[in-house]
Every structure is written in C-alpha cells, then in structure tokens.
C-alpha cells in the first residue's frame, strides 16, 4: 500500500515539478541562461558512462533517461562499464591524441581518485557548471560537506553530486544474531567462523574502502590521511592495518586465496550462505535487495562503533564532450527532488539523497517523508559518525602495498 502511495505522490511530484521549478527560479538572468542550455540540449545524445553491474541502478538510469527524453528531447545512452578507471583512461587517451571535441564520453559517474585524476590531468569541463544547475539550490552543502569536497579534493563545481554513500555492513540475522560492533570483534568473529567473512580484492573500489576503513580506525595520526601520501611515513602509518590483515587473512573466505570480485558479488555470496557478513556503500542496499528477492528477509544492516567511511558520488562532464548541454540537463534532472526521492526508494535503488530535505518546499518534503526505507535500513541517526575519505593518493599507495603483500601468491 505504501508503495502505491509513494508512487502516487511521485507521480504528483512529476506533474508539479515544472511549476515548482519555475517558481523557484527567481533571477531572470539565470532562467534565461538555463533556457539556453535547454535549447542547446534538445536533440543531443548523451553517452553516460556508468558502472553497470547493478540491474536496479541500470533501470533507474534508464527511467531518468526516458523522463528527460520526453521532457527535454535529450537522449541518454547508458554505457555500462565494469571499471570507471577505464573511462578515465579512455578520455586521457583521447586528449593525448588531440581529440578536443566529439569525445566518446559525455558524462561519467565518478568520485574519489578517478575524479582527482581527471581534475589533475585537465580532463574535466570548465569549473562551476554544477553550481549553475537549477536544482543545485536544494543541495545540502551545509550539513553534507562531502558534496563539495570529494576525498579531500574540492569539486569546484566540476562534478554534480548524485547520492550519498556510507559504508554499512550486512549480516543475516537467521545465522548470526549479534553482529560484531568493532574491527576487533570482526576479527574475533572471523576466528570463530573461518571462511565466513571476505572483502573484494583491491584495487576494486569496495576492497580498497575496507582497507581505508581499517586504516582510518587504526592509524595513530589521523591528520596524515587528509594530506597527500608521504612515502617517508607510509610504512609506519599502514603497519597497524597490515598487522590486522595478517591476523585476519587465514580466517577469510577461501583463506584469502580468492576474493569476491566486487560488492555485488559479495552480497550474492551472503545470499548463497557462503558468507555471514558483507558490506555495501549504500545504506539502503540490503532493503533493496530484500525487496527484489536477492537477499533473504532476515538480512539486517549494522555499522561499527567509532564510525564508518562515508562520501558522495557524482556525475562529471569530460572536457571534450560535444553534448555538454544535454549532459547538464541530465545531471540537473538527477538532482531534482522527484528523481532523488525515487532513487531513495529501496525497491528502486535505496541510495540516500544529497539534498537538504528540511529546506525543501513542502510538496517535495512530503515526497521524502512518505518514503518507506525498508526493513533493513538504519535510520540516519543510527548510521553513526562519518569517517572522512583519505586523500586520493592513498588509494593507489594502499592498492600497491596490498597487491605486493597478498595479491601475488608469493607466500
């Protein structure tokens, strides 16, 4: 019943959005600028390169594409990639051979070290565009600092926030009643239940996130992490991390000789009963998977004491896209309260909003308030503190150190 109600309200929202938008755009100058973008965008085809391993997210991207094709005449093609780094590499290769316009990529789903890499190599469209989007006004810049600072790197309006991510763990309460509350307890759990915990193999994003979680919890001087990695102190800083992993690895799934490919694979292993604990960057992931029959109904979400890593994911436009207007229209639609509510519905995706719900006009606020977050989603106040992402340079340093230690089978 709530589902129909939510859908009904969503529909109402769709109908009302144009009016609301119009009413909000107070400065006539801005309106006409945006109108120019809309005019230019009409008829463009936007190639949106986004990770394609999750059918629910793919379906959401399709839905958003249909909406803006109908309303603004912009066609969006979802190019499903298995690794965002390859898209960065592709744009970089295009720049290197002198392709200044007509690049293959018009919009990328991105954050963290990939964004930092693109920014550093001058692969992004001119700064500031994200803040000119009409729906930018609703973004919660004040309470969600990661919407403008991506892994310690300022976004400078070169990427538009799409959703919030926070590391959460999942367990099947039918098999494991009381989940571990800290990393030490997790280690104890693994020792007592060999083969029932795993993390994806770095350089997979989720595997690296687990390393960062352990690093952020065990590092002595946290300030080191917010600065570019310093070779002189790296070994000392990661010593407790690798000591922890050395303890953990003999008790991992497959004794650490094979790893899940990514978070989705890990979740599938939880569903198969191979694992007792999995984790996700999306607090609504478990509820969504339950609603879709991908996880048993007994799965619940938990976090660790002392907080977990959190960040924001974005969409960015490469410098050589010839369909920048269309890409902006799509990015703006993704930010709209209607699209953001739909995204947060567990059955659709369950991804938390980047908007400031409290500051929304009452119609839009009602959309969010009508959301049923599902049985396995923690309330915002239960999610615990957010540990900041380390500087992006830590990522490749961690990945290399990890691969050298565990990824070469040289034990």
């Amino acid at each position, binding site marked *: 019943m709530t589902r129909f109600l939510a859908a009904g309200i969503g529909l109402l929202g769709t109908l009302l959005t144009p009016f609301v938008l119009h009413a909000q755009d107070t400065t006539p100058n801005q309106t006409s600028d945006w109108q120019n973008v809309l005019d230019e965008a009409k008829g463009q085809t936007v190639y949106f390169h986004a990770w394609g391993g999750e059918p629910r997210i793919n379906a959401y991207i399709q839905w958003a594409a249909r909406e803006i094709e109908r309303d603004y005449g912009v066609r969006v093609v979802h190019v499903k990639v298995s690794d965002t780094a390859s898209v960065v590499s592709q744009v970089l290769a295009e720049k290197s051979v002198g392709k200044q316009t007509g690049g293959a990529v018009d919009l990328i789903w991105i954050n963290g070290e990939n964004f930092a890499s693109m920014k550093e190599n001058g692969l992004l469209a001119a700064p500031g565009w994200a803040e000119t989007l009409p729906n930018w006004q609703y973004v919660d810049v004040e309470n969600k600092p990661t919407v403008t600072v991506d892994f310690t790197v300022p976004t400078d309006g070169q990427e538009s926030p799409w959703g919030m991510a926070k590391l959460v763990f999942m367990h099947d309460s039918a098999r494991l009643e009381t989940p571990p509350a800290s990393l030490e307890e997790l280690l104890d759990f693994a020792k007592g239940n060999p083969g029932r915990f795993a993390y994806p193999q770095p350089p997979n994003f989720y595997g690296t996130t687990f390393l960062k979680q352990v690093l952020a919890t065990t590092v002595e001087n946290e300030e080191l992490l917010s600065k570019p990695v310093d070779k002189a102190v790296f070994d000392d800083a990661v010593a407790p991390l690798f000591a922890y992993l050395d303890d953990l690895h003999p008790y991992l799934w497959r004794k650490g000789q094979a790893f899940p490919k990514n978070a989705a694979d890990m979740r599938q292993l939880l569903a198969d*009963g191979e694992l007792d604990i999995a984790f996700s960057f999306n607090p609504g992931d478990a509820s969504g998977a339950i609603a879709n029959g991908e996880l048993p109904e007994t799965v619940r979400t938990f976090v660790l004491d002392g907080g977990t890593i959190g960040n924001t994911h974005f969409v960015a436009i490469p410098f050589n896209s010839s369909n920048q207007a269309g890409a902006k229209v799509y990015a703006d639609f993704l930010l709209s309260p209607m699209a953001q509510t739909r995204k947060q519905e567990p059955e659709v995706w369950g991804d938390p909003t980047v908007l400031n719900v409290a500051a929304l006009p009452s119609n839009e606020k009602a959309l969010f308030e009508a959301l049923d977050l599902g049985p396995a989603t923690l309330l915002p106040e239960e999610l615990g503190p957010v540990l900041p992402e380390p500087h992006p340079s830590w990522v490749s340093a961690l990945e290399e150190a990890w691969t050298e230690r565990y990824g070469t089978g040289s034990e």
Partner: protein
Amino acid sequence: MPKVTGRPDIPTVLVTTLLAGPVLAGLAGSLLPAFGYLPALGYDTFSQAPFRQLFSTPGLGKSVLLSFGTGLAASVFSLAIVLVFTAGWFGTRIFRQLTRFLSPLLSIPHAAASIGLAFLIAPSGFLARLFSPWATGWTRPPDFLVLNDPYGLAMTFGLVAKEVPFLFLMTLAALNRPHIQDYFKAGASLGYGRMASFFKVVLPQIYPLIRLPMLAVIAYSTSVVDVAQILGPTTPPPLAPRLVAWMNDPDLSKRLMASAGAILQLSVSAAALLFYLVLERLCAVALKLRYASGHRHNREKLARKSGLAVMVAIISAMVLAIAVLGLWAVAKSWWFPAPLPQRWSLGRMSDAISMGTPALTATLAVAILAALMATALTLWLLEARSFRNVRTGRRLNFLIFLPLLVPQVSFLFGLQVLFLIAGLSGTFLSVLFAHLIFVFPYAFLALSDPWKRLDPRFAKAAASIGASRMKIFWKIQAPLLLRPILVTFAVAVAVSVGQYLPTLMIGAGRIVTVTTESVALASGGNRQVAALYALLQLIIPFVVFTLAAIVPSLLFRNRSAMRLER
C-alpha cells in the same frame, strides 16, 4: 582452365591484406610503445623502461606460468579427449548421437559457458545444492576453493569444455573424406583393435588437417581474457587479464608497460606453441616406432570406456550449465541448499529483453554483416583459386590464420591506438572490421574442406556447354554447397557473437553487444539478469545454427541425393 599466372588474384590479395595487415599493424602499434615510443601520449624517446617496469611487477612470473600452463594443459587435454573418444567410438551409434550436441555446444560463447559453469561448480552452485544436505550433510556451502583457484584448475576445465567441441568438429570434418571407413575395416580384418587402427592408420592422415586449429586453440587459451576473468585465479591473475587492467589504468605510463606485456604475452603464446610442436614431434617419433611393431592392441576396453566417460562428462557439464542458466533466468530467490528456486519470476525476463534490445540489435547487426562478408569473401577466394587452379598453399593458410595464432591482446592494443589516431574508434564500421578479422579464418576453416571435396567435373561439364563462370558458381557450386555454406555462416555468426575483447577495445564502449553486457553483469549482484544475458548471448548462434540445419532440408525435400548422408 587457365594455368597459374604470376599475378595473384584479387581475392587473395584482399584477404591477406585484410587479415594480416591489421595484425601486423597492431603488433607494430604494440611493439613501439613497449620500447617507450608513443608520441601521441608524449613519449618520444626509445627506452627499456616499460620492460623494466613490467619485470618488477610483483607476481609477474606466476602470471606468466599460469597463462602458459593453463592454456597448454587445456589445449592438450582437449585434443587428447577428442582423439581418444574418436578412436574408440568412430562409426558407432553413440558417436553419431553425441555429435548432435556439437553445433549447439560450439555455438555457446566462451563468456556464457564460463558463467554457466561457475553457477554449476561453485561450492554454493547447482551440483552442491543437488546433493545437499542429504548426501553431503552441508546445510551451508562449504568453504572450498573451487572457482578462481590459484592454480587455474577451474579455468582449465572451462577452457577444455569449450575447446573439446571445437576440436571435435574439426576432427569430424577431417574424417569426412572417402575411404576412412575402409581403413578401419582393413585394420579390423588384420586383427587390429579399433583404437590401434585409428592411431596407426587414420590419425597420420587426418592430423595435418587438425593441426592448424589446434595451434589456434593453444594461442587462444594461453591469452584468453573473458574466461580468465570469470573462472581464473586472481592472486595473481594470468597475464592477459592483467594486461587489460594495465591498459585501462588512468596512469598512462602503465600503457607502455601494458604494451611491453603484450609483447611478453606474444612470447608466452609462442613458447607454448613451440613446446607443443616439440611435443608433437616426440609423439610422432614414439608412434612411428610402433606403427610396424605389429602389436594389435586388442585390450582397449578400458581406454574406450574412459574416453566415452570423459566426453559424456564434458557434454553433460555443458548441457547442465546451460540448464542452470535457464533456471537462474527465471529465479527470483534461490537459497542454498534448495535444488530449485523458491520464488520464480518472469518479470525480469521481459525487462531484460526490453533493456537488452539495443545490445541485441547491435550484436545481430555486427554478427550478420561480419558473417555475410566472411562467407562471401571465403567463397570468392575459393572460387577464384580453384578457377585458376591454385592450391591453397601453406603460406596463404598461415596468413589467413595469423589472427588466430597471434594472441588478441598483443595486437589489439596497437590496433586500438591506430583506430583512435585515425578517429575511427567507437564506430560501428571499425567494430565490424575488427570482428571480420577474427571471423574470416573460422569461415575459411569451415568452408575450404567442403569446397575441396566438391567434384570438379560438375564445373567442367557446365563450362564445356558454355556456362559462364558466374553461372557455374550460382547454378552449380553454390546450390551443391548450400548446406556447408549455411553452416559456415552460422559458425561465423557464433564467432562474432562471442567476440569480447575486440568489441570492448575497438568499440570504445559505444558499441555494446550482449557479450560485453554479459561480462559486465557476470560479476554483478543479480544472477537472474546475468543468466538472462548469458542466454541472450546463446540464442543468436543457436537460432542461426538451427536455421542452417532446417533451410536445406526444406529446400531439398524433393532431392534425395541432397539429403544428409547420415
């Protein structure tokens, strides 16, 4: 007919430039960056740095050994299984029945087969579910290292399951010549066992025809990417998937290292080929000593039985894998250890089909065009050469099979950069062209033997009553060869549908096929969708193979001489 003239004919020139050209250009495009020269990315001096960087990569030695070992072992096992089975059972009813599974199994793309096998043999897979908990006592999946094992056993098994049907088909084609049955009869009448007759008399005659396909299998297996990604080890992975990862790294200096790795891959595959050639020579010597020993080898029961058992096991594994794919495609929830899904749903199927339509259309368009072009080119080449009375010599064969003998990753990197510089990357035509490079050799392989077996007197008789060359082709040769032509077309379609790396690298993500989608979804969180896409991959070749079987029967229903010999 006119005698050989000095000038080669147009199709020969066309085909060799079309196939060998891109391979050699691509190799050059990999070789230069391997020595630090890639001016497009700002590297314009030669150096050994890429190789030094490559050799200091942790775990490289293991990766090389894995590629060499799994590829070679899979190829040799496959050939051994095929030969032992053929030797033991050729001409029997069981043999004929099992050959029926061939084309459908051959049409399964590598990625789909790997996904299905993974669903089957994982500790939480279908086999474990079937026997749990009543036989195994498992209420939870055991923590066994079955998939992605560090020694690459699962990967080797996956490769064997895919290469056996291919080598079997090649062996069958080679056996499809006059007097083969007579050799067996002669052997039997002299008191030789079935298998002894095969290895002593038949094999030496047909082996030259299996050899080139076998070498292609070795080159492929030592450099495979998609099977390795799904079934292979990851700590460390074999060389080829690692190369692809380096090539996609945002750190562009890794591209130079990847190019150096591509050259290393080339030498690894070459070493495996060389190793095989030495092994072949040794076997030949060992066999030769026994040819005239007079030993009848009558006690062959055990060898025959085990040959059959292995063959049946492989075919059943593949059939089961596909069946499990079919089950997952309609399963909403399927918890361990239930042998069948708890909740079914068909909704996803229609979703997947509607969302997969663009990929399906692109796959169909590329496959049909590439297959048409490959089949037409093959016919043109064969017709022109037989008209001019030129035998397809070793050199031409070598050039045609070059794309299959050189590891894909080794020249695709270079080719990708060339396409990028030419501004052709990501276009439909460039992907079609890349597919054609790999599809043509298979088309040639499938059609050249039937063409050679076509009685030349038909053409001579027609020519003597004044029929033009065109008319002879359309009225005589093409109709007589309709069945093999359609099978060739089907093989070509299947090969095109299975292409993963060329589509990904040359298509720049803009040309999406069910195979690239399927590999992207294989590691995702929804088995139902992964299974659906794997099935979509399978449907196109399957339909085409079926049509290739049905159309001639319908057309020739009133021509008893045109029916299948069986």
